[in-house]
Structure formats: C-alpha cells, structure tokens
C-alpha cells in the first residue's frame, strides 16, 4: 500500500497543522504506518486509508471514524503494552509518537474478522433491554449466562501490573479561568489578560485554536492561523496569563472549584520520568465556558457504516491534518454549516457529489458557496440508505415530504466513500451543568443552551449557542472584559475593540429526528442513535412504547449515552425521537443530567501522589528508630506505628509476648506510650468543666494528684477514658486513648465554644510535645530512683495516683505514678526531644534489673490480667459504665454530666443488657478467639440465640492459663455459670463466667 495514500499535498491543503518533514512510525493492529508530527492516531490512520478501526459494543458492527475529537463515540483503541497499556483511548485524541503501538478493542480474533458479528445477525432477538426479559430459566443457569455476558462486555483490557507512571497535583487560584481555546476563549483571554487579571486558559487539544485550526475563515482580515499565532504570542507575553494546551477542564464543582487534567507526557510516549499527568485544582474568581459546540448526526438508515462521518470532522481531517477521509463525498445536512465543509472538501480536491439538505430553503450564502463550486444541492431531500460492505460505497437519496415523516417516490443514487453528516450543533453545556447550572431549550437550533447558574460563570460562543465566528469573537471579548471587571480588573481609558470577523447570514436548520427509510423498508433498516452502544431509533421507540418514558428510563433501558463518549453526539437525537414518540415537545421530555468528568480522566491522576505509602502520613514516636533497630514488629494504630512486640532470635509472637509479660511482673517492663493523647486544660472553671465532661467528681482533686475518668457521649455510651492530673491550681493534664486524641480534643472544644462559652477554660493539644515512657514492675522504683534525684519516688513520696515534676536522667520530666499493668508503674513524660535519650538511659541503667521493652500486645495482656478495659475493644459504642461493671465511677451526687440523662432511659434499665465479665475456659490452655460469640444452648437451631461475645482473650504467661474478657447478657449476676462458644471450626468450647480481675485482685502489687 502506498504510504499515506490519503495524505493531501500542500497544493491542495496549504495550512495543515502537521510537519510533513517529520515522519513518525507507529503500529496499528500489528501493521506499521507512517504519520507526521502533529497527527493524531486518527488523522494518521485516515491518511493511511484505514477505515475499519473498531467494533460496536453490542452487535460488533464495523466502526470507523465518526468524529475528530472527544465526541467520537466509537474509535476506542488499546495503546501501549504491558504495565504501560492504556485501554479505551479514543484514537481521535491520541497524539502520535514514534513507536506508538495501538490495537482495536473488543474484537476477536481481529477487528476485520470479528466473530462477535454473530450478535448482529441475531439482533432481531436482542432489542433494547432484552436481558431483562430472558436468562431467567432455569434460574441456576444465570451464573453461566452472566459469565458469557461479562466476557462479551467491557471494551479494552485493564493493565495487570502496577502503574509505572506517577501523577501529581497543583493547586492554584486565578481571577478568570477560560475553558476552551477556540476563537471565543482566546478573545476572552486577550480581553481579560490585558486588564492584568490572573487568567488561565485551557484547551483539551494539543494546541490552542479550537475551530480555527480546522477552518479557513479570516479573523481580523487575516488567515485564522496568522491571527492565532499573534494572539498566542500576546498571551504568552502576559505575565499573569497561563496558556494550557493538552488540558481538559473535566469538572466544574461548587463555588468555582474547577478540576483540570493536564497531559504532560502522553504525547511523548512512555519512558519519561516526570509525572505523566497532572491534576490542577483551580479556585477561579470567574469562569468563562467557551468549550464550543458538538455537531450532531442524523438518524438515517445505515448511518453507522464506516465512511459516515460528522461534517465538521471531515473538514477537520482535511484542513487540520491534510488527511482525506474519502474521495467521493455526499454531504447530508439540516443546516448551513455543512456547506462550508462541502467547500473545504471540494477545494481540497475531493469530489462532492451532492449536498443533500433536509430543508426546502437553505441559506443564500450557503447556496452560493455550493454553486461557486458546481456542487449539486438537493433540497427537501434525505439519505434513505447507505450501501456497502464494511464501509460506505454509495447512498440513495429521496425527496422528503412536507411533514418530514415520509419520502416522495423517485430516488437518486450516488457512489461515494464518505457521507459527511450534520444534524446541527449542541453547545457543550456539560461544565455549566456540573455545578447545578440550568439549561434552556433553543427551539430554532434544536439544542439546549446554558441557562441560569449560581456560579460566578458565563458561557460564550458556540458553547452558548452562537455558531457564527464573528459573534463568537465579539461575545468572547465582552465576556473576558466583564469577567475581569467582576474580579476587580478594569483597563483604564477607552475600551479597545476586540478581534472581528465577517458575519454570515444563515437559515435555520430543519429538525427531522428520524429520517425515513425507503418505502417498505422501515422494518428492515437500522438507524443508529448511539453508535457505541448500538442503540437504534427502534430501541428508543420500543422503550417509550413499553412505558420507559422518562429520559432517564430511556437512557437506562436502552443504554443510550452510557458509553465512554457519554452520549456527546447522541443525546439530543435520542431525546428528539423519544419526544416524537410520546408526542411531547423535546424540552418537556427533559435532558439527562450532565455529570463530571467531561471526558474520562485517569484514576491515578485523581489519586496523585497520595497513594501507596503516601496514602496517609505515618506517625512515629521519638523512639521509633530504637524500636526498629531492636527488631520490633509494629502495628498500625490509627496513623501511628506502635511497637507490637519485640521478637528475639527465633521467637514467635507468642513467645515474645510471654517473655515481655513476665518481665513486666518480675523485673521491669518498659513501654513507649507516647501515642497517648494529652490535653492541657487551664482556667478558673477547669474543674467544673471536668465535672461536666467526666462521669465522676473532680472538684476535690488536689494539685499533684491524678484520677481516672470515664467520658460518655450524650446518649450515655462510653466514649473515652484516661487519667487526668491536677498540675496546678486551675490547670489539668488530661490523657486520652491514642485513637481518640484528636476527637476528644474536638469534643472538649465543641462543648466549651458552643454550649458553655461562659466557662473560663482553655484547652490545648500537647500530645506531640511529650514523649511518654512507662516503666512497670517490681524494680521500676529502684530504676527510677537511680536516674532521678529531685523526686522522692518512695511509696509515701509518690503514692499511687499522684505525680511530681523533676528531672530524670537529666531531662525535665513529669513523673506519674499510675498503672495500666497493676504493677508499680511510672509514666515518665519528657519533652519529645528527650524521649530517645531517656529511653536509652533507662535501658542502660535498667539492664541489671532485666529491663525488657514490651509492645502493645503485652500491654493488652497485662491490663487484661487486671481487668482494665480498652475503650474500643471492651466497648463498641453500645456500652454504658454500668455495663462495664463500673458503677463506682458514676457520680451519684453530681446533678448533671454529659450522658447522665440518657442512662435513665428504659433500655438502660434492662437487667439483660450485655455486661462485661471474665471467662475461664474449661481447658486452661484453650485461648478463645476474640470476637467469638457466646451462647447458652449450643444445640439450639440456627439462628442460634447469642448472649454475648469475647472482647479480649490471651494466654497469660503470668497466670499460666488463658483469660478472656467478654460481654454477656446479665453477666454480672451470672458468675460461676457455664456458657458455650461455638467456634468456626465446628468445635464448641465451654467456659465459666468469672470476675474480670484475674491477677492480684487486692491490688497489693499496685500499692507496694
């Protein structure tokens, strides 16, 4: 085959936007082709006379190029291989690069010989929604049917390896954001830019210019390309203007929050080490929507054959890329714009056989263009069929009757390989609608135009229904001036004039939503509305007949507009047909909601850098590296990495935890408790505040003393616990659970600011300022005494539940004599920067005592041995203090505290509430799974009544047996009774309900 057989020479197309001197080689469906710099995959394939590119979704009918950009419904290709493969790219939007490899999708074995075409032969059996009516018998076969359906569906193939590319995000503010770099957008940018406003103008294409790139019209009496170059030069010189090609404005969100996607390396191919794509999040003072309009097709028999193409696309291939989409051409239109296309094609040496116009009276200027080129115009006519095998080879034209619902006898036949169709234009109102903008129906143009919006935004040019270049330039200029003024930028002095073009008079289009077929063939032909999903006019009408009368029903029942093009060319014709079938006006049928994104955007780009390890920040204590260096295994607790246990040579978790637990009771254990939440509470009303927040009384807590507190949510459920200490008069240090540090801080602030602003109390989160090191065990006091000379750490000097300020190993410290292990225990708080130093000092000095670091797992075992709860483990948002057998902490005297009133409600007075108890398994070495459900009668039928579950369960090395905490209905009064736990492996374990304190019930060790 001749290289680029359909590439038009410079003699025929002078101003194409390709560099003919630069060849680019690429592969499509295994064959190598040549294109030029500036080509898209589509334009290069057109230039190489490749017409059959894709297959449709349902019937696997041949599909060729129908559009030239984002609107094309069909030409999805798979680009690249391996980890770099990209499914479903639209060939019309893929910029060519050397070595590009692309393949058709959803066709087997190949796009030329696709066995899926069998669906087409059966299409009579597969009308819209056929699957709702069948595959129901026998019921068990549905799984098989579904398997087949699923494999048939989908288009491209998802990559299987992790994405090798990176993506990033930019945040930016601007005064005026202009979406669309066509004539109206550029005029707006010039106007706004000259005022000094911060302007961003974006366009999804590889270069700015929009319709100018594909048109031969003059601007300011110069060729469009010349004006474009000077406009871009001027914008480029403006400091506050950012011109962004290859950037799609994909979403307009509330309050002018705009999402942009910039493609940075896609046009270069793989192997670049900058971010492939970048998402810009723009907050714009004013937005100008200048995204142009999308041409619609006409719904006529055989309108899906490759070779049928939007007229504007045909002109774009010719003018922009010097690629000839066909040799002999018939133009089929309902409006004047296609006459310009006819002229462009004719001037490029393409033989335009005829212009078939639905209208009786085309515009005078249009007719003049045709007659100047001796193009025959068939008015009040329509294409009633296309002929050809895999592509169009000819069409038949007949006269249309006055009503537009039938034809008049007498046919004309034309041979042609290209049918350039124009069904009128639909403004791209998508972004306008994203943030709730309304649309109005333009009866004359047969389209929706932007209506009211709450956003600081306006639509101009073709995006606003203005199709004439002169109008676009004027409106763009005006919009740019006004938008800048609205953000406070005005050019002083006389308002200069914007760019101009010659206005052209046009006649209105004629809307015939279904083009009649040849007489007698109505039932034989297929007229496609949605070319991707194979939705025909018959499908639309069937849906309406069956009662799917709303536009949303239509869409969902027929899948119209649900494809990857989201119905850009098909929505309006579909609505027109539905309206006609229902005998309503089109706007009464309504339009489906336009949703972001405007075109599909890479999921990785939306995630940006914030995925993988960067999903969330990692919080580490100042001693983290020590733990790492000493082999700690870590667990995630919220964002924190906490040492879980410290396995030594050959130890498994079980052995390590046992060793750590024994050390804490027999020598010294040391725990990194830095993650505890710490809140500094100050002010004359601080104790009153604590009284309201906690269930117990706080008024009498003396300086130097500590108290355990429980806080409830207002509905009476335990929310958090911790020790709060009186630091000085009117000053307290509250500790919270690690996981709730932030939420408790928020909770306190909320009450203070919103409910009790009269209380003079101030809270400050100081969690990160302090490192907390807990030493626990019989020698803990000896060790502390060695390193601390300014605090009397004796039992009298520093009794249980008290604290002192002093110096430990040279670091300023607050030492708290509190305990979560039941041993003599000191929580030493030092400024975070001293944490590691103190840890090392304690380890060194403690070596002789056998000091042993222990992790969260041993901490859990030790506290469970003592029956201490962990909020979030023993509680789940449904436990009251009474349920936890903690009546002692609920003040009977205080008239009120948060949650108190709720405790008196009916459901809280039941005696069969689930209550916290201990469990001893019959076999002392049997460790119950945490979460195991408890029943009274393990032989009861399913569903088996459950009376509770295990909240914590461990093998206690200190006790030499297993222990468990559990909640059991009425459990507090059932101690000594036996319950049953049916496990997942089918075994049922018996256990006795016990008290919760398994170790040192008198607390002698604690107070020693």
């Amino acid at each position, binding site marked *: 085959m001749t290289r680029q057989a359909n590439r038009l020479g410079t003699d025929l197309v002078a101003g194409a936007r390709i560099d003919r001197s630069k060849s680019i080689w690429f592969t499509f469906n295994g064959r190598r082709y040549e294109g030029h710099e500036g080509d898209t995959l589509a334009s290069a394939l057109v230039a190489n006379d490749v017409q059959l590119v894709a297959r449709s979704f349902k019937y696997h009918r041949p599909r060729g190029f129908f559009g030239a950009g984002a609107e094309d419904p069909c030409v999805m290709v798979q680009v690249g291989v391996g980890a770099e493969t990209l*499914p479903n790219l639209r060939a019309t939007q893929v910029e060519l690069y050397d070595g590009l490899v692309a393949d058709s999708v959803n066709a087997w074995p190949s796009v030329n010989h696709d066995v899926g075409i069998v669906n087409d032969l059966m299409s009579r059996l597969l009308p819209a929604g056929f*699957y709702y009516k069948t595959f*129901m018998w026998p019921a068990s076969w549905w799984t098989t049917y579904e398997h087949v359906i699923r494999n048939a569906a989908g288009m491209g193939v998802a990559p299987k390896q*992790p994405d090798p590319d990176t993506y990033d995000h930019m945040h930016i503010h601007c005064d005026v954001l202009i979406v669309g770099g066509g004539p109206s957008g550029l005029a707006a940018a010039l106007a706004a830019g000259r005022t000094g406003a911060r302007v961003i103008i974006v366009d999804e294409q590889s270069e700015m210019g929009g319709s100018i790139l594909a048109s031969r019209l003059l601007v300011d009496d110069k060729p469009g390309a010349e004006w474009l170059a000077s406009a871009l030069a001027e914008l480029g010189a403006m400091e506050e203007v950012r011109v962004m090609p290859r950037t799609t404005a994909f979403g307009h969100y509330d309050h002018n929050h705009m999402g942009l996607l910039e493609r940075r390396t896609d046009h270069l191919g793989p192997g670049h080490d900058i971010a492939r794509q970048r998402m810009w999040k723009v907050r714009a003072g004013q937005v100008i929507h200048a995204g142009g309009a999308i041409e619609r097709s006409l719904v006529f028999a055989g309108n899906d054959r490759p070779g049928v193409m939007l007229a504007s696309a045909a002109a774009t291939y010719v003018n922009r890329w010097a690629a000839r989409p066909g040799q002999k051409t018939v133009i089929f239109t309902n409006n004047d714009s296609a006459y310009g296309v006819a002229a462009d094609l004719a001037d490029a040496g393409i033989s335009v056989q005829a212009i078939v116009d639905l209208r009786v009276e085309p515009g005078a200027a249009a007719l003049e263009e045709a007659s100047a080129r001796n193009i025959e115009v068939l008015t009040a006519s329509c294409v009633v069929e296309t002929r050809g095998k895999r592509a169009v080879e000819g069409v038949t034209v007949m006269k249309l009757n006055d009503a537009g619902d039938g034809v008049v006898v007498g046919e004309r036949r034309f041979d042609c390989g290209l049918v350039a169709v124009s069904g009128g234009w639909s403004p791209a109102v998508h972004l306008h609608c994203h943030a*709730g903008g309304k649309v109005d129906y333009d009866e004359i143009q047969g389209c929706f135009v932007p209506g009211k919006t709450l956003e600081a935004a306006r639509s101009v040019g073709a995006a606003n229904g203005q199709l004439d270049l002169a109008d676009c330039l004027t409106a763009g200029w005006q919009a740019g001036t006004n938008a800048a003024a609205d953000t406070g930028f005005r050019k002083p002095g006389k308002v200069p004039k914007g760019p101009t073009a010659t206005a052209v008079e046009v006649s209105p289009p004629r809307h015939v939503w279904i083009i009649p077929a040849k007489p007698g063939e109505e039932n034989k032909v297929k007229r496609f509305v949605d070319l991707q999903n194979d939705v025909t006019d018959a499908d639309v009408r069937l849906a309406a007949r069956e009662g799917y009368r709303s536009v949303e029903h239509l869409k*969902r029942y027929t899948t119209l507009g649900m494809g990857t093009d989201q119905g850009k060319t098909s929505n309006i014709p579909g609505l027109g047909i539905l309206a006609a079938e229902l005998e309503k006006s089109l706007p009464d049928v309504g339009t489906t909601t336009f949703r972001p994104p405007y075109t*599909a955007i890479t999921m990785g780009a939306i*995630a940006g850098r914030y995925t993988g390890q960067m999903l969330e920040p990692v919080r580490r204590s100042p001693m983290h590296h020590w733990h790492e260096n000493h082999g700690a295994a870590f667990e995630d607790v919220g964002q924190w990495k906490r040492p879980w246990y410290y396995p030594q040579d050959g130890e498994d978790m079980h052995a390590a935890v046992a060793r750590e637990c024994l050390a804490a009771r027999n020598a010294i254990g040391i725990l990194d408790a830095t993650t505890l939440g710490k809140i500094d509470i100050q002010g004359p009303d601080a104790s009153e505040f604590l009284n309201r927040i906690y269930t117990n009384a706080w008024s009498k807590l003396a300086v130097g003393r500590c108290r355990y507190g429980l806080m409830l949510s207002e509905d009476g459920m335990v929310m958090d616990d911790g020790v709060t200490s009186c630091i000085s008069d009117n000053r307290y240090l509250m500790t919270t659970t690690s996981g709730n540090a932030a939420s408790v801080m928020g909770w306190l602030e909320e009450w203070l600011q919103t409910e009790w602003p009269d209380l003079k109390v101030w809270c400050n989160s100081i969690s990160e300022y302090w490192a907390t090191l807990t030493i626990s065990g019989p020698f803990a006091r000896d060790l502390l005494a060695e390193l601390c000379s300014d605090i009397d750490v004796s039992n009298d000097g520093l009794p249980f539940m008290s604290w002192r300020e002093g110096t430990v190993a040279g670091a300023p410290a607050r030492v708290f004599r509190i305990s979560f292990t039941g041993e003599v225990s000191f929580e030493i708080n030092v400024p975070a920067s001293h944490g590691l130093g103190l840890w090392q000092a304690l380890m060194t000095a403690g070596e002789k005592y056998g000091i042993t670091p222990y992790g969260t797992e041993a901490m859990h075992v030790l506290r469970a041995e003592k029956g201490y709860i962990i909020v979030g483990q023993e509680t789940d948002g449904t436990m009251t203090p009474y349920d936890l057998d903690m009546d002692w902490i609920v003040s009977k005297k205080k008239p009120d505290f948060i949650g108190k009133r709720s405790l008196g409600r009916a459901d809280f007075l039941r005696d069969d509430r689930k209550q916290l108890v201990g469990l001893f398994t019959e076999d002392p070495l049997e460790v119950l799974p945490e*979460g195991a459900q408890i029943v009274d009668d393990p032989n009861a039928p399913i*569903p088996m009544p459950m009376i509770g579950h295990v909240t914590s369960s461990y093998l206690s090395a200190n006790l030499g047996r297993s222990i468990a905490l559990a909640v059991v209905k009425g459990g507090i009064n059932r101690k000594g009774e036996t319950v049953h736990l049916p496990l997942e492996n089918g075994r049922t374990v018996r256990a006795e309900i016990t008290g919760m304190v398994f170790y040192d019930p008198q607390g002698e060790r604690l107070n020693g």
Partner: protein
Amino acid sequence: MKRYSIFSLVRNAVSHHKDWPKAWRSPDPKAEYDVVIVGGGGHGLATAYYLAKNHGITNVAVIEKGWLGGGNTGRNTTIIRSNYLWDESAHLYEHSLKLYEGLSQELNYNIMLSQRGVLNLAHNQHDLRELSRRISANRLNGIDSEFLTPADIKNMVPLMDVSPEARYPVMGASLQKRGGVARHDAVAWGYARAADDRGVDIIQQCEVTGILREGGAVTGVETTRGTIKAKKVALAVAGHTSMLAQMADVRLPITSHPLQAMVSEPVKPALDCVVMSNAVHGYISQSDRGEMVMGAGIDTMTGYTQRGALPVVEELQRAIVCLFPSFSRLRLMRQWGGIVDTCPDASPIVSKTPVGGLYVNGGWGTGGFKATPGSGWVYAHTIARDEAHELNAPFALERFTTGALIDEHGAAAVAH
C-alpha cells in the same frame, strides 16, 4: 401479565417488537385509595407489590414526584449482602437477600443478581477482631460468612495489593459468597411491573405537597395532581423522609447527606467480586458492562444537591489505587450523587408514627438497596396489619426514646 421469556422474545422479534405491552400503566390518580405509598423507588414499589401479593390490598397508589426508580434506587452501587453484626440487622437483611435470590423468577424480570461474593477487608488488629466477631455472629445467625487470609484473598482477587509493605496492609477479609450485586433499575422496574399487574396504580410526575389529617389520623395527600384520599399513607422517600414527615408534624431523627458514586470506563473482566474496605475507605465492584463501580462514605454536611465535590473523588481514588495499583491507568467516566438519609445509629426506621395511618420507612443511609425486598415485605406487613412485623419491630421510632439503638456504625463505617 404477559410473561417475559426467550419465547416471548422470539415471538415479538417476528412482529418487529411492535407488540410488547407496556411494562406498567400510567393511570390518572383515583380519588381515593386504601393505601397511598409516597415514593416510587425500590422500597415503595416493593411495598406495593407485597401489599398486593401478601395481604391482598390492591387499591394502592404509588406516587412518585419524578420517575420511578429515579432516587437512590437508580444511583447506588448495587451491593447486596446480609453480613451485618447485630441480630436485628442480620435477620432483616438476610430475609432481604433470600428474597433477592428468587426475585427474577418471582417478578418475571431479570434483576441480574450476581452472587459473586463480598469481601470486607481488615487492615489492622482492631479490624481483625471486629471481623472475627461479625463472622462468628453471622454464622450463628445462619448467614454464610468465612474468613480469608491474605493468601486466600490474593487467589480470589489477583490484582489486589495484599503485600505487608502497604501503608495499611490487607490482613484478612470476611467473605460472604452469597453477597454480590444486582441491576438496580431492574429491581425497581420489575417490582413496578409486577405491582401494576396486581392492580397497583403507579403515578409518576406527581409530587406530594401536603399530608391531610383529621383527629390525629391521616385522610389523604395533597399532590400536584390534586387531592388523593387515603386510609393509610406510607412514606418511602429516601433522602426526603424528614421533609415529608414534617408535613404531618412528625419529627424524625434523620439527616440527609449527599453520597457520591462513580464508574470507570468499561474494561474486560478484571475483578470478580465486591471489595469493601473501612480503613482504606472505599468499595468497588465491576459491573456486567465492565465498568468499575466505586463509592465511599457520605459527605458530612447536610445536603440535597445530588452532586458531590472533588475531594471525595480524590479520597476514593487514592483508596482504589492503593488496593489495586494497576487500576491507576483506568479512567473515571462518570461521577454522580444521591441523597441518603441517615439515623444516629446507622440503622433504618420502618415504623408506625404518632399519626394514625401514617407510616415511615427511611433512614437506610447508604445501605438501602440491599434491603429493598425485605424492607418492602416488612413495611407492607406493618401497613396492612398496623403493627410491625417481627423483623422490623426493633426498627421502630420509639427506640430513640427508649435508647434501644441498633448501632451499626462499627460494622458499616464505610458506606455500602
């Protein structure tokens, strides 16, 4: 009702599909009904169907302000499961799942139930404990539920990253094999067609503007198509429940929030089950069309906009790309929003109200779709008998006074 089958398809193919009957009529409202159901979504239509089928009450109108199935029924991510923690929820959702399992045949409308399994991932020790608790409870409640190790998960979902190096590594999962997805529109349409066939009037494009009462009991509704008298009025208007109840001066503990969902472009099968994660916060499945269907939690602010903001999309995509690093190169095709109404305990209200003859069904939060058949079943019972079915008795309005909440926050922290 003319039955749908392969044979009816062939027959109609011969006549070029010109003779298919309407799936449902579009009648004008009558002056009076025994029961008016406000809301033509899945729950309202299912309720109408079971009123007719189970209770013989056919003088029923379903009144819909827009188009049927157009609310949350047509906007959700279609996940069906019953592996709830608390007995009350588990029994209700399991009843619903059982009804789903025969629904295509029951309605003679293929709702495309795909029991491909639902995985709930655990990413830390706390998750694992909760998972084990739920699996244990599910099993004893007769709900299939099993634990999968990371290796099991990798076998089942090869593209998921289960490496221990992940920021929040996958440490296990619960699997409900009977869980899955169904075609949401078909559920609404199937119920509509079957209810219509039993004489229920489905009246679209008719908005209720007032609830008429006399002596503490309802007598009908005011609508944009005139007054309709009714002995009983039943609300099934997810998203707007409290607004409708307000018309009868009934206050509800419900707030409405936007919930977003989104789909990728369709690709060949790459994910064969539903995956949900609380810690990484997102859920995903692949539709029969090939799209990845994804969702996350609700927007925290009260809202009725049916659209969402970009940060939610970002958060969700981070989660999805974390779990499925290769999906990074897929492209997001469409995002949308619904309005869900939520209760303080993340459980629904299916209940009588202080107003005689007025019933409320709402507060399903993000989980209403999976409950559709079960909800309709028990709501119909409640309306017909004027007393709760045993399955919805715990979901009465009174629980907010007594404190007997059914707190599903733990089990349903991520939307579903």
